[in-house]
């Protein structure tokens, strides 16, 4: 997730803009870990961060001849450190490296097309699911830490004018959960249960709102949020545990291609 870019518009003049994202996600991590111990070990987190920072610096230097600010790769490293669950170290490193490398390989009109962490997670689930999993459980019942995450996240999202993306996705998820419940006969509560977990909180607050990989118009963003939820529903019918990641993975780049195609056509016509 490139929350650095999301968080930059915050008017926290006392801090350099590039520091806001890393500080906020570090705060979230600390709140969750100190209250619930969400990390198996610190060393795995540091492995992920080390991999993202190293990959970013090497590739950026190689491609552009300059060093890259560390904030984006640091945030991606923390994201991988939180989301990846494995008793081994290398999945943390590889997820981080693939996430960052994807930014330099898959580009369209000067920008990357996948949220890096979403890409890394999905690729790892496809290639290495026998060695890793993704965070999918509750962090705990003490709600204050969750409240901090929601409040900080929503505040940030509100400040960068992306609250509508989260709201749309949540409403769409609820609607499709109702539909799934009707089709499968499962209880509605069971269908919406994942939304109350930390995986979705991270996904909703940070991943689908990544400005680098979302459309520039509000209307487009709302449509894409609904499409992500719809695609996720399809995956859920096939019992994919990590359906939201797959949904974003597919809908994200397609929406960018389609939006550019529509813009080109509009410009041609005009």
């Amino acid at each position: 997730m490139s929350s650095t870019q999301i968080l930059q518009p915050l008017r926290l003049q006392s801090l350099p803009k590039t520091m806001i994202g890393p500080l906020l996600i570090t705060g979230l991590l600390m709140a969750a870990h100190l209250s619930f111990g969400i990390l198996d070990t610190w060393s795995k987190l540091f492995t992920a961060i080390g991999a993202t920072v190293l990959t970013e610096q090497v590739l950026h230097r190689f491609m552009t001849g300059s060093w890259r600010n560390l904030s984006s790769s640091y945030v991606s490293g923390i994201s991988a450190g939180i989301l990846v669950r494995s008793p081994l170290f290398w999945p943390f490193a590889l997820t981080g490296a693939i996430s960052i490398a994807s930014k330099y390989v898959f580009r369209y009109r000067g920008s990357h097309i996948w949220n890096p962490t979403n890409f890394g997670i999905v690729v790892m689930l496809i290639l290495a699911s026998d060695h890793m999993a993704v965070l999918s459980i509750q962090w705990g019942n003490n709600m204050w830490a969750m409240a901090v995450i929601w409040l900080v996240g929503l505040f940030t999202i509100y400040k960068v004018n992306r609250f509508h993306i989260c709201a749309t996705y949540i409403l769409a998820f609820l609607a499709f959960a109702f539909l799934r419940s009707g089709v499968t006969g499962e209880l509605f509560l069971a269908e919406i249960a994942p939304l109350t977990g930390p995986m979705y909180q991270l996904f909703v607050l940070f991943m689908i709102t990544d400005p680098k990989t979302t459309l520039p118009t509000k209307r487009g963003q709302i449509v894409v949020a609904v499409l992500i939820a719809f695609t996720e529903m399809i995956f859920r019918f096939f019992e994919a545990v990590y359906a939201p990641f797959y949904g974003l993975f597919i809908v994200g780049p397609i929406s960018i291609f389609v939006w550019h195609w529509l813009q080109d056509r509009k410009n041609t016509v005009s």
Partner: protein
Amino acid sequence: MDVPFWKKLTAALLFVGLLFVPYLIRLSESANLDAETAANRESSMERYGFYLENRADELGIRFTHQRSDLDPQLDHIEAQIASVGASVSITDVNMDGREDIYLTSSAIGTPNALFVQQPDGQFTESASSFGLADVNTAELGVSMGAIWGDMDNDGDEDLFLYRWGTPTVYENMGDESFFRMVANNGLPRHVNANTALWTDVNRDGILDLFLGGYYHEDVNLFHVTSTRLMPDSYEYATNGGLNYLFLGRGDGTFEDVSKEFGIQVDRRWTLASTAADLNNDGYPDLILANDYGVDQIFINEEGRQFRESGEEMGIGFAPKSGMSASVADLYGTGEYSIYISNISEPGVLMQGNNLWVATGKREEVPSYQNIAGSVGVERGEWGYGGLLTDLNNDGYPDLYLANGYISDEPGTDYWYDYAKVVGGHKEIIIDAKNWPAMNGRTFSGYQRNKIWLNSGSGKFREVGAAVGGTEITDSRAVAMIDLHKDGSQDLVVANQHQPVLVYHNHQEPDRKWIGFRLEGSQSNRSAIGAEVLIHWDQRVSRQTVHGGNAFSSQSQRALLFGLQDTKTVERAEIRWPSGVVQILNEPETGTYHTVLEPSSLNGSRLLDVSRPSDGATTSNESYSPDAIKTSILPTPSNL
């Protein structure tokens, strides 16, 4: 970025290289696995020193566990709620010097089984005649496990049966019959217990009882009044059953000291327990493996109370699904390591098992570090009993891990629905009616047990495919038994809703060993909690007599040490729970030594017993207290 094509191509190639990493790792792993699978019995014994062969039928041990039939409101997820109860415990029920096997069943009306070993090595099912068969009743509940210990120090082994129901003591009357102790014995009326152990927490010579609750004790799973009985979180649950500590009075009655001793500090879902003296102060500490949360270590403060120290010791912080707890001196250092199995399901939940080794001391308690990943014992599957025992008698305990949750309709999978619910808020996960129906689906089933060999140099190697002993079963409890008293560490594996397996351990004949049968006098007669440290080959190996271990199991009380090809043991040091330390110089190898705890002599605590020249150290014979030659007073830290 205006980047030259060759640079883009280079980045793309690097990216493709990254994508190949999992493939290369898998290739490397499968290459090793193929080599292991290709081995046969002869080459396995030559290469690894042992081979396991299931001989349950030949030995006359035929028994199939039956799972519980719960309240109809739980029918849709009954297979996972009633997923435990297959247990095994080893005892010498009739004191004839031969090990016997007790197995539990968990459906009302189905019998438990007691296989009594005959002189010819065959076993005869005798639970009915001993009065230990028809113990799963609507009135008392169903068996979850059994542990044996001489609670009244009368020379025979009594039975404590823990249930989803009424925990019950059966007194061994010494005439091949048992008397069920009921009412006013100090035990609670109803506990949904999945673990228990005998231990002497205050070292008064009388066995005490630890009992671990899983489901809340107010829940009757056969007649539920509310379906809000599931854990309120998958890794941070706070609504499990209470744990209990009962001080024994020596007459089959007990005093509940759970609160005074600091045992009932929370409501975790305790699934397994074991006891060992982790901080070397002479008192047994408690190690609890908790499902849906962090594990716990209760440090015994001189038999007066316990202090929960898991987090302080580095163990009780990251929550997982603790399924089994066992300890062993893995590296010949005289220090215990702790193995706790957890759950790993590729792509869904990768907790990894924990191997905690002591790395130092912090404020009077040892600090631990999880090295399971670096030594290679982290990746199990849906783990249950993890037994640390020296399968190839090379002097280093190996690891046998029971795996497999629910093997039902092949090709089906419940994981998606499970993951959906356990990620939810407590108001959703806590109510069984919110859980999707299993509908006969398999849930982490059809898994093989794992066997890791300890190299002694810090690494473990998985050899299950080569050495046998890993049938596809829903295994739960594993216990060690030396079937033929020949020093081979045979195994009994109790499987859920499936037949029991008894693995004969074919040993490489040159492997040496030594065994000790201990009998307390000042200490409890079963010698539970006693430790033996043997000094050999410039190292020390340490074991303790357990009153319950791993998951729902109790191995034979006689301690067995592998010595590889070493023919002599310099000395054996026996630390009795009473505080007496007894030294056996140059005990003979290749036999069991029956050792009676000597009486205290003039306040001396350390007793040096030289090996009698008349061969009194042969199996089933005893050291006589007359053989005590010297006495030395130790400092308390020696104890």
